[in-house]
């Protein structure tokens, strides 16, 4: 033990009063919440209370299972898909009682999972209902004019832009706002998964969208709350129901800011790893894959026996801070 002298000894009494940072960007009037401060359901969940999904306007199940295929039409023999995104500011409860002033596409974080088939013509309109310029930058092939970076189709506050390109290559991609400062626009929640299916499709499976993300709630460039699909421990509170033996396919996209690396690890099973989803032949058979920022992989797996199986980041700090869920196998 370090010897602390009389000076340091007496000085140690104080040091408690801390001005809390970051509140200037937070909500105007913090409202007392009525979360019951009792123990959580599961001993594996560290947070206390429940998130009000109705108030958020989306549920963990919707974020995991819903796809936006666009409004479909035909033009000269080509399938045309029209999508609509609105950039809007919205307060989102990311952990019980903790509200984050997010920037959203269509009122949710992550934004809608945009899905098309390789070769489809995509038209995406962005309406900007915020006070900042925003854009949508898609990963994938497209002309420079459709890049969605400042100077190339950025929507001014109150403005609107439309992007048009052919969906390729097939695989698992992402989209995000590319307005400056870039880190802020991503960290605040302007991103989503973008899936391009191969023409012949993939084998039938129970599909899940898992966007790995985190929130810097006190705006000091490091995250406080980690999650898969925004809400800490969402799939630990409500385990994902699956059938034993059934093929599961997860579209895993890492959109964590501030931490360079994230990962996904499945308990008690292994998965076929299709890196970036751009090949139909698996690259690896494993139970963990590390992912840098904006990296994304398709993983396919089955559970052999009924039971509850955990999945989480193997950056264990993230696990303890909300990035942990369960599959309920029946």
């Amino acid at each position: 033990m370090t010897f602390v002298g009389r000076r340091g000894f007496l000085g140690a009494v104080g040091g408690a009063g801390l001005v809390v940072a970051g509140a200037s960007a937070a909500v105007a009037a913090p409202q007392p919440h009525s979360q019951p401060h009792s123990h959580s359901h599961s001993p594996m969940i560290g947070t206390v209370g429940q998130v009000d999904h109705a108030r958020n306007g989306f549920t963990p199940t919707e974020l995991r299972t819903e796809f936006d295929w666009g409004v479909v039409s035909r033009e000269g023999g080509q399938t045309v898909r029209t999508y609509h995104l609105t950039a809007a500011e919205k307060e989102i409860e990311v952990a019980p009682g903790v509200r984050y002033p997010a920037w959203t596409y269509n009122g949710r974080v992550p934004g809608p999972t945009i899905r098309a088939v390789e070769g489809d013509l995509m038209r995406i309109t962005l309406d900007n209902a915020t006070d900042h310029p925003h854009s949508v930058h898609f990963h994938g092939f497209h002309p420079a004019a459709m890049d969605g970076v400042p100077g190339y189709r950025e929507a001014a506050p109150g403005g609107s832009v439309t992007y048009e390109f052919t969906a390729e290559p097939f695989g698992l991609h992402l989209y995000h706002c590319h307005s400056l400062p870039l880190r802020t626009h991503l960290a605040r929640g302007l991103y989503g998964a973008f899936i391009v299916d191969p023409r012949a499709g993939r084998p039938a499976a129970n599909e899940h969208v898992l966007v790995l993300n985190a929130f810097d709630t006190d705006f000091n460039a490091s995250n406080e709350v980690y999650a898969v699909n925004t809400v800490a421990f969402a799939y630990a509170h409500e385990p994902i129901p699956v059938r034993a033996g059934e093929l599961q396919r997860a579209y895993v996209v890492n959109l964590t800011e501030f931490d360079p690396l994230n990962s996904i690890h499945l308990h008690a099973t292994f998965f076929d790893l299709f890196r970036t989803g751009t090949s139909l032949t698996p690259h690896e058979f494993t139970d963990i894959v590390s992912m840098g920022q904006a990296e994304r992989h398709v993983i396919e797996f089955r559970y052999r026996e009924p039971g509850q199986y955990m999945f989480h980041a193997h950056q264990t700090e993230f696990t303890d801070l909300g990035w942990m869920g369960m599959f309920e196998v029946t």
Partner: protein
Amino acid sequence: MYQARKRSARTLDPPTGPGPVRPVRARRLARLALACVPVLGLGVLVAVLVFGNLVHTVSGGVPVESVSVEDVTLAPGELSLHLRNDGPTPVTISQVMVDDAFRPFTASEPALSRLSSATVVVPYPWQQAIPVHVALLTSTGAVISHEIASPSVTPVGAPATLGMLALIGLAMAAIPVALGLLWLPGASQRAVGAVLAFTLGLLAFLLVDSTAEGLELAGGLGAGLNGVGVFALGALGALAVFAAVESLGAGRASGMRLAWLVAIGIGLHNLGEGLAVGTAMRIGEVALGSALVVGFAIHNLTEGVAIAAPLATSGVPGQRWRLVLVAAVAGLPAVPGLWLGGLTGGGVWAVLGLGVAAGAIAQVVFSVGRLVVAKPGPLAAASFTSAVGVMYLTGLLA
């Protein structure tokens, strides 16, 4: 303007009552009205600032949440944080993170209104001396961070704990002061000036010491409690009270009287120091090593000398028991200080105590200083300087 209107009213409407009464009453009324103007004006100003939300309009900002951790108590497998909202806006504690992991907790009052307090209890398998970092996440996502540098079980008010704290208090203050007092000067009148200068040096050092300690602790208190203000309140209040007490007995200046004043000042200093040490022990920031007690003991021996020296001016009193009483007044307050600090976590009280000590000692420094200045000389200067040096060197031990 008011006067002018009054005068014109009078010309239009001549007084009906007896001549001299009316102007006197009017003048009195006018004075009363003028006296009310600042109060009314301030009321209007405050109303405009508060209800007009003027400050927020100008700054365009949102009030910053601020919560201070006033006390931490540790029991096996459990941390308790005692919080006070010392910011301008209500704060709700939504989640608790310990060592970068969310942990279940209970809060006596999750929503803290301004200046209200709450206790957050977190079951946690903390380990002796392994640092613990606690972060409270508010409803707005702000983080209140608190480090427990060296956790150990918080003393509770058991007789054994009280006894242990009392022993520490006796060892670090009461006994050394009494021992120092035994050096009663058999000094000749020639050396009196030098002995008093020595006392002055000791006291001046204690004044600086109390001020530095008090302000250091004040800085650690939450911004809303204004630790420096608490210190100033204690110091200036004590200065005034001591000055008044001294003036009561003016003209009866004796060595014994001065010894009493010095003893009371040192006693208050030891009370404040006991509070500070007790509080530090309580919050588990440091473990009290025997070296620390030894350091305090040697340092405080010199405080006994400070009391003894003034007696050289008038000689030792006939009743020796009075010396025991003087020693007790100077040294024993460390014991209740340790109790209060160790059992309740008295950060604010420690600041107030050290403030009172600084004020009291300042007054004693004036008194002794007057006597020393009356008999200046190289011997007195050397004596003064060596006293400061002794205090500094013994202070290094602790």
